[in-house]
């Protein structure tokens, strides 16, 4: 059997080789992890357990349990001013990852161009390719603190694209965008009739200003798919629960694919999600404040040891410039000599060259130890 052409077009994940190196070693401290170090809040886990005890192991409605969609609608409105109808405009998915894939497959035709902001999450370009689209990599600039700007969009010819895909707060740079900064992007999208896929999975982890969704800006709701989920905010990555907010026809098109491929998001996870939105706001706030303290500690230490790092304002990543030219080699040596894992920036696109992603989703004691080792190493 031969893999299909579109699969051959996508190289294996750049993070893979480094992962294998790190896995072979004992007692490393990893700042290379892209998920929370917390477990899901106990109330959410207990709700999942209870649902299992009650035998809730069937499929749910394709779009997700109505109770969950209703709670998502209330949450999105209260928290971000995103008004979406739980019956027509909200689709519960197996992680935000599925929602992104559905958006691509539902809205992109073969040959369409998808502008993908980079450095960015590793899966956007492959997903665009799997959907038959041409990816256009738009490299944000360090000088702009890795924010998406009109200038950068124009310089890359993103106006000719059909879709713009980005994620703020950003993995891997920790960059965030304010409403004002986003309005420049919104204006560009309207002018060039772009559809926007806005991955807002880290929306709860914006430390210096309130998160704004581009869909709340004038004329954007009808051209935006908002993607979010429970993984990062509620530390539920393994439960696979996400959702998309989109106008009715788009949500319907995405659901068409979802109903034939996934049927419904994991039922147990949906019960956990209902409880998370119901009662876990305090747990979320506590996790956020711990990330925030670690973030400040990390940025201060980087500054003190002379690592040049753009101020990380969101998610749980910082993206310092590598003191050596070759970030991959630097990361490898750091791993071997000091047993600290960080991820070379190129894993997140060419624009990440010369940088390292350091995740602070690691307990404070380990984080301090890792920083001591990095300082010693450089």
């Amino acid at each position, binding site marked *: 059997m031969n893999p299909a052409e579109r699969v051959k077009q996508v190289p294996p*994940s750049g*993070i893979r080789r*480094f*992962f294998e190196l*790190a*896995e072979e070693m004992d007692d*490393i401290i*990893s700042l*290379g*992890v*892209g*998920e929370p*170090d917390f*477990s899901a809040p106990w109330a959410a886990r207990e709700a999942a357990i209870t649902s299992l005890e009650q035998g809730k192991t069937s499929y749910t409605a394709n779009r997700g349990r109505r109770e969950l969609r209703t709670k998502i609608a209330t949450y999105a409105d209260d928290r971000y001013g995103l008004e979406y109808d739980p019956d027509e405009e909200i689709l519960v998915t197996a992680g935000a990852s599925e929602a992104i894939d559905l958006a691509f497959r539902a809205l992109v035709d073969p040959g369409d161009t998808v502008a993908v902001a980079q450095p960015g*999450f*590793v*899966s956007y370009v492959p997903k665009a390719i799997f959907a038959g689209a041409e990816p256009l990599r738009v490299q944000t600039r360090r000088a702009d603190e890795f924010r998406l700007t009109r200038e950068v969009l124009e310089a890359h010819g993103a106006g000719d694209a059909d879709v713009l895909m980005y994620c703020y707060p950003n*993995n891997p740079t920790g960059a965030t965008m304010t409403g004002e900064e986003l309005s420049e992007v919104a204006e560009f999208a309207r002018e060039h009739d772009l559809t926007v896929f806005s991955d807002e999975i880290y929306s709860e982890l914006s430390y210096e200003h309130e998160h704004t969704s581009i869909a709340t800006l004038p004329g954007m709701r009808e051209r935006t798919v908002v993607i979010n989920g429970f993984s990062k905010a509620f530390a539920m990555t393994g439960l696979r629960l996400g959702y998309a907010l989109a106008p009715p026809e788009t949500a319907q098109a995405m659901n068409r694919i979802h109903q034939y491929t996934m049927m419904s998001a994991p039922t147990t996870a949906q019960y956990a999600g209902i409880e998370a939105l119901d009662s876990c706001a305090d747990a979320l706030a506590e996790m956020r*404040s*711990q990330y925030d*303290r*670690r973030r*400040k*500690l990390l940025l*201060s*230490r980087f500054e003190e040891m002379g690592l040049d790092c753009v101020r990380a304002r969101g998610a749980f990543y910082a993206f310092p410039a590598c003191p050596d030219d070759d970030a991959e080699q630097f990361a490898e040596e750091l791993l071997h000599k000091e047993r600290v*894992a960080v*991820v070379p920036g190129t*894993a*997140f696109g060419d624009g990440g060259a010369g940088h390292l992603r350091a995740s602070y989703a690691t307990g*404070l004691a380990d984080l*301090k130890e890792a920083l001591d080792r990095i300082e010693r190493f450089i």
Partner: protein
Amino acid sequence: MNSREEVLGVLRENARQSVEDIARQTDMDPVEVERIIAELEDDEVLRGYKAVVDWDQLEHERVRAAVELNVTLDRETSYNDVAERIAKFPMVESLHLVSGDYDFLMEVEGASMSRVSTFISEKVAPVPEITQTVTHYVMESYKEQGIVFGDGEDDDRLSISP
């Protein structure tokens, strides 16, 4: 959050940190952190820094008991008067006035069960206002000051993930 609350938050999480590390976590100057801590101590907001000990992990056992106390008051005696009198005993670890079936909830800690029993019968029960004591010896501790005892949850995340 104001800076006092921020410093308190960090200390409540882990009080055994250098002033420099607290400063880094709160985006403050170490001198400022030092000043705030001194102020919190002066204002008697910060009353102390103590270790959370899982005694089960040690050879010598400590005996702890939760004791319910009922009191009768008169015109001259208030809850505060009774509380002050009891709280002065070093064996009393904590003392709270509570709602419900009894008046005070007192936690006592001692080297042996007989020490604790003797203390309650000879020092606490004879206090004139105290009409009844009910002693519950602690058999096992599972969580203390927000810290769950036991093996904890392993970090089984992949060491590198996107």
